[in-house]
């Protein structure tokens, strides 16, 4: 290690060219007014119900908020992660020699350098860096710490990875079939299953005046926080690692770092900085163990900030769903029975799929009293970007399905979309699909209040009218 550190003494040519480098020192200080004016809402009692501005509003307003990208520790290195770029493959060899020999490159690590190379909030199926197998194109296969971000990026090009390509599984419905090769063989592609049963659905369909069916699909989307994922790791002389991170969940993050890096929790300090948007995408560790190990190897602080493309393909995304709905109703519009099948595209790793599966399944019937219900949900692996926690955990997807379906039923029966919902909506004390007695229920109030505010005037409000272009 001493050798590696001493390697930096000679500055490579690239360091003499500031035009192609990101600044390695913090931005110059901007002066700001010191006198505080505390907005009235923050001074009033009682405090609850006040339109109190945020405690950090002044910092944001004056442009003084410091994100990780603004943070600089003395002697800090920059890290970049090489992405596989192939969706499914066996790694035959990784040659890092040429990259390591580059001036300004201080350390390179691969999956083999990770003490415990797996993590995940429920299934521990995600490697920190792919070692033997690549499961999706955004998988990291090696990481470089260098004097500048530019050198680190150039070093990635010098890392040679030999792959044995394997056919990727991309369609969730294909993945569901038993004969489809396992993404994580020998594990099955279906890695989560949930069922909710209430009453007798088939009998309800027989007793219904009309039975409606529909299939709905949703797409994969990104959280797109303004601030992409970022972290800095730094070991102090007491053998403790301090990690500054954009994590939204530091308690879980510390447990994951302890496990993957092999350090007791008492020797880890995680500080979440001001986070520039989360929406679920910053709920588990990403490169924290990599930065901790690069920092340990080099004895210097190491920073990593994801690029926007990395934020897309190397962080989690929203689960695409395929949703089959079948609903039996009376001619007045009362729902007698509903049967639902959900297939969640779980991407390459489990991540927060268990939670998404559960919430999607429980919420899939909508906020309606349905005595006869059968909802079944599956989540399957594919060789696509991993899906995980995202604002709504499956709820926006199933809401799109059950509410589109509801409108189709209302229209076929000639009922106002408001009336069919009011007829079926939960009220105080209603029993949920899982048999839970609900309290503080205001479904009908929300419908009626929205209708009043919107100016929804029954069926005949001149829909579809041409308007001036």
């Amino acid at each position, binding site marked *: 290690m001493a050798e590696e550190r001493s390697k930096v003494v000679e500055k490579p040519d690239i360091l003499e060219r500031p035009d192609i480098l990101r600044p390695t020192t913090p931005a110059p200080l901007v002066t700001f007014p010191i006198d505080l004016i505390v907005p009235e809402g923050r001074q009033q009692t009682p405090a609850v119900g006040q339109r109190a501005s*945020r405690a950090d509003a002044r910092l944001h307003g004056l442009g003084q908020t410091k994100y990780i990208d603004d943070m600089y520790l003395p002697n800090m290195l920059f890290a970049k992660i090489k992405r596989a770029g192939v969706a499914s493959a066996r790694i035959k060899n990784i040659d890092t020699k040429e990259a390591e020999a580059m001036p300004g490159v201080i350390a390179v690590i691969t999956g083999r350098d990770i003490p415990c190379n797996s993590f995940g909030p429920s299934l521990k199926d995600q490697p920190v860096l792919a070692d033997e197998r690549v499961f999706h194109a955004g998988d990291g296969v090696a990481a470089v710490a260098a004097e500048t971000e530019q050198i680190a990026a150039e070093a990635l090009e010098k890392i040679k990875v030999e792959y044995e390509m394997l056919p990727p599984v991309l369609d969730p419905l294909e993945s569901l079939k038993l004969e489809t090769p396992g993404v994580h063989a020998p594990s099955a592609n279906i890695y989560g299953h949930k069922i909710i049963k209430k009453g007798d659905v088939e009998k309800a369909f027989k007793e219904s005046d009309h039975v409606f069916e529909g299939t709905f699909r949703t797409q994969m989307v990104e959280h797109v926080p303004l601030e992409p994922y970022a972290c800095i790791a730094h070991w102090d002389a007491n053998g403790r690692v301090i990690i500054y991170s954009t994590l939204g969940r530091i308690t879980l993050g510390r447990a994951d770092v302890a496990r993957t890096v092999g350090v007791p929790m008492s020797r880890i300090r995680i500080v*979440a900085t001001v986070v520039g948007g989360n929406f679920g995408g910053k709920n588990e560790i990403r490169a924290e163990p990599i930065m901790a190990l690069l920092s340990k190897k080099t004895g210097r602080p190491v920073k990593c900030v994801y690029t926007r493309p990395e934020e897309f393909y190397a962080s989690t995304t929203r689960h695409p769903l395929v949703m089959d709905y079948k609903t039996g109703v009376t001619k007045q519009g009362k729902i007698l029975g509903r049967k639902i099948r959900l297939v969640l595209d779980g991407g390459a790793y489990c991540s927060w799929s268990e939670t998404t599966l559960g919430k999607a399944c429980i919420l899939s019937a909508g906020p309606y009293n349905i005595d006869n219900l059968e909802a079944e949900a599956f989540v399957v692996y594919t060789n696509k970007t991993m899906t995980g926690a995202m604002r709504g955990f499956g709820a926006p997807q199933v809401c799109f399905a059950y509410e589109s379906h509801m409108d189709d039923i209302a229209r076929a029966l000639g009922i106002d979309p408001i009336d069919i919902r009011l007829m079926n909506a939960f009220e105080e004390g209603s029993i949920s699909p899982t048999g839970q007695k609900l309290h503080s229920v205001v479904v009908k109030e929300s419908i009626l209040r929205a209708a009043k505010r919107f100016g929804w005037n029954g069926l005949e409000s001149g829909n*579809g009218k041409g308007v001036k272009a």
Partner: protein
Amino acid sequence: MKRRGRGMATMWYPIGFTVAANPSAAVVKVNEDGTATLLTGTVETGQGSLTILAQIVAQELGIATDDVHVVSADTDATPMDTGAIASRTTYVTGNAARLAAEKAKLTLFDVAAPLLGVKPTQLEAKDHKIVVKGFPQRNMHIGDAANHARMVSGQPPIGSASFNPETVALDPETGQGKPFGTYVYATQMAEVDVDDETGETEVLRIVASHDCGTAINPMLVEGQVEGGVSMGVGFALEEEILFDANGRQINPNLTNYIMPTSLDMPEVEVDIVDNYDETGPFGAKGVGEPTLVPTAAAIANAIFDAVGVRITSLPATSEKVFKALQAKREQQPKQLGTGPASLPSAPGNGASAQ
């Protein structure tokens, strides 16, 4: 021609984790001048959660939001928290913060009671004072009580507490159980213009009526709803990660991954439904995630209302709506003349009324 349509969607959404324990712990310290510090392991990720927690602690101690400083997000300094996820901060962390503040407050009451000549149970904290219930003129400043607690009584007012929502595991065969402590409810209504020649949809207005229990801070609720609606508009009309045949993303950048900008945003009218949940801190539940849940469904229903095509897969891009309109025209027999037969007989058939 652009055609106007309206659509609605209603939803329910739970607060906290599905069955799994998701506790929060908190520590509240009252300073000698009556201001306070809250220690919490949660992370401010832009939603204003630390302000909400400060308001909850301030309410319990009878002081103002600005009197509470929040220390957060440091595993060395702050107690454990399950974190900024599952719309749980106001409800779960908020309950823990309130309970911690209550404990610190009870220490202050113990100190103040003999000074005011009453029992601790006869006291309440409000307007920066510790007041004898029913006798507002008999009071002392909270700072005097806090200072006395430290300098004379030797009882520094510090409280710590934790909270975890009550749940019951789901039966694996039937899914029966109590997965969540509480739920919130909401309805959104969308007004759109759809161009029946290009398939382009413009969202003009979203009315969003949301339940969050007590709105601890109505301004932050509005902020969450407006942000959620923008995500919902993107989910409904534009955003989609595309893959090539080899499983590589085609559009991992903000040039080709289209999301709404401020120019694409509709008018958002936020309506907070009055509600109180006795299990939440001061009746509060949460609002983070639910804000985007009904948006796409309301917009899809409005598109149907405008031009009579049902979009069954998101996003409802112009191309998709255009193709659906084309398919619909091909299916319909050609209408000759403009007699009564061609006038709209039901909403959503897309015929022009002009």
